[in-house]
């Protein structure tokens, strides 16, 4: 299966770990550390799922702005927000902006894998329909 998941997070450790875990599960994974890289990556090849950190340090756009930008170009693209501690409210507002789901830090690998596979499945089904 040729799933292509883009992980956008300013923290390298988390970025790589999430990518690694997903790759362990057989997903294709790319990473971006800021909005520019993320938008470039999306532009280069449309991913099948985006994990987007809400708080992006050292990025031109923050998570919500980036979400809006991505949604503008690819409304169909599922985006799962990674919310930091203490900003669940932001995550909720991200849902309103079109995000598919959110996971709250610190999250467990199981949940990450679950959310990823579920959202991929949902969007695959939606496309088929």
């Amino acid at each position, binding site marked *: 299966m040729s799933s292509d998941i883009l992980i956008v997070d300013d*923290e390298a450790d*988390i970025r790589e770990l999430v990518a690694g875990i997903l790759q362990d599960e057989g997903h294709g994974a790319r990473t971006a550390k800021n909005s520019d890289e993320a938008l470039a990556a999306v532009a280069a090849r449309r991913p099948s799922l985006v994990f987007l950190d809400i708080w992006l340090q050292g990025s031109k756009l923050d998570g919500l702005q980036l979400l809006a930008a991505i949604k503008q170009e690819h409304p169909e693209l599922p985006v799962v927000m990674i919310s930091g*501690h*203490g900003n669940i409210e932001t995550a909720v507002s991200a849902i309103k902006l079109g995000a598919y789901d959110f996971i709250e*830090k610190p999250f*467990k*690998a199981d949940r990450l894998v679950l959310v990823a596979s579920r959202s991929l499945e949902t969007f695959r089904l939606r496309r088929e329909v």
Partner: protein
Amino acid sequence: MTSAEQVALPEAAETGGPSSRLASRLIGPVAVGLALLSAVVTFLVLTGLTPVVPTHDVVSGVLLANGAMMLVLLGIIAYEVFKIVQARRRGRAGAKLHVRIVGLFSVIAAVPAVLLAVIASITLERGLDRWFSTRTRAVIENSLTVAEAYLREHAAMIRGDILAMGYDIGRARPLFDQDRERFRQFLNAQASIRGLPHALMIRGDLSIIERADLKTGGDFVAPSSGALKEVGESEPQIALLAEAKTVAAVLKLRGYDDAYLYVARPVDPRVVEQLQATQESVAEYASLQARRLGVQVAFALMYTVVALIVLLSAVWIGLNFANRLVAPIRRLIGAANQVSTGNLQVKVPIRPGEGDLAQLGETFNNMTQELRTQRDDLMRARDVIDSRRRFTEAVLAGASAGVIGVDPEGRISIVNRSAEKLIARTQSDILGRPLAAIVPELAPLLEEARSGTQRLVQGQITMSRGGRERNLSVRFTTEQSAVAEHGYVATLDDITELVIAQRSSAWADVARRIAHEIKNPLTPIQLSAERLRRKYSAVIVEDPAVFVQCTDTIVRQVEDIKRMVDEFSRFARMPKPVITSEDLADTVRQVVFLMRVGHPDVDIEVETAEDPMPARFDRRLISQALTNIIKNATEAIAAVPPEQLGRGRIKISAAREETDIVIDIIDNGTGLPKENRNRLLEPYVTTREKGTGLGLAIVGRILEEHGGRIELDDPPDGSGRGAWARLRFTAERVVNDETAVEIRKAASDR
């Protein structure tokens, strides 16, 4: 005459109408004037300087008049003295002085006069009087003796002559009978020989028989017929005839029938006059001598009366002078007495004629006025101080800070209400007792304040009174005083709440940071561990169990850390309460329901004073607070060793106290520690191994947000074990019927 002799006079009313007073004022001078006039008149009369002859009647009349004047004066003086004595009896001001001055004046007036009189009379009596009276008597008596001797000589001569002539005539009887002419010649011869100008022969009936006519000049004075009868033949009768200035003698002639010889010879008329005058003088002198005592007594009486009048006048003048002298002094004394009793409104009337005393009165008036001004100033100052004191007391009483005044010896001198509350003692208990004994916590600061030179010493102390521990901010201020010995004022501010709030706020900040900083690395740690396990657990052949256990431990620990951080963030991000009208009874019930489900082994009793119990609060927050407290209680019960526990029991009761809602949660768990009990409300203070120490802190904050607090204590029944948590918050009672109905409806729907 001193006043002391007249002290004992009967008491009588001094009062009289103004007219009588005027009369009594006039009567004195008039009487004195009259008395002195009468004395002068008496003197003039007695010294013969007036046409009035000082006969006996005149003298006695004058004496009587003087006596009367004297009595009048005596009466007036007695009246004056009586007044003085009465004043003295009444204790009138200056009476003693008056008496003394009057006495002095009387003595000064009387003693010299009396002395002078005595000396004068003695001098006259002993000196001049005696001298003159003896000489005068001698002269008078001598001249009388001389005159009488002269006359006696004449009488002796005429006696001899008449005897000789009688003898001769007797022998010449025959001649008388025979020859009358010759007898007449013989008689003439006899008369001329013997130098007798008159020689007569008379019969018993004074008819002249024969007479010698030597000298016809001169009167013939016939002797009295009675005298003739006693005349003998041998002894003639001799008489001095003063009018005729002659010496006459009669003799019975012998040899004749009823015939007498009468001869007369003129004497020197001056001698006769002299004799007459001398005799009169002697007679007058004798009569004077005989009346001497009477005259002396009269004069003495006169003198005494006049002297007494003068003396009494002097006494009266002295009295009057004393009155005038004493009157201002008396006024002054009276005023001074008034002043001494506190009446400073007194003014002494000033009469310019009184000289120095008037000045004294003026000075006195100035003095009283000055006193009055000063006293008024003092009163005003006292009023100001009083109002300031009242103000200070009101400020002290109303001050939320506790204020304790300490005297230089370190004893408590003043305590306000807040301080009483803080140190849990009443003012009457501790006033005057050493501060260090009552509040030992303050002793070090007091010592510092007393030993140090700085004006302000401050510090913070922790003090436990009545089961409550408080943090106090203490300032010792030195009283501002110039005196070296001065007191101190301790100001106690209860900063317990502030300290708690500060700690809470600090910890909220810390919690936020920790949540952020800790949660970040947690994600990679956990993800790493999980990835290791997922990817390599199947690959590892040697001791795979250890690998799994290690990765699991990491994940579990991270989970714990995460839970803790979650609580931190919950505490740190405590939302502001949203106060709405709610039913407290239902809120409690719901919380208790959940807790009963979670802890079936604990009996949880609920008791609410009202049901429903409408109030305004944030339901979610109060539920959380209740949950936390009940959770703590269940944990405390769980911590009790099972063999001691018996049956876990939690009793919850909700009631109103005035405007407050009070929820008591009493359990029979392990109870609260004795020390640092109030610190349990601080974040991260916990008595449990696994506690975050945020449960009670969150409760505290929730109640704070509701304008209330949490109180922790031992159970009220004194059963020894367990804890008593009291949640108290201000919740306005809902009086709006609509809301109450809604609440009731909501409650019944449920």
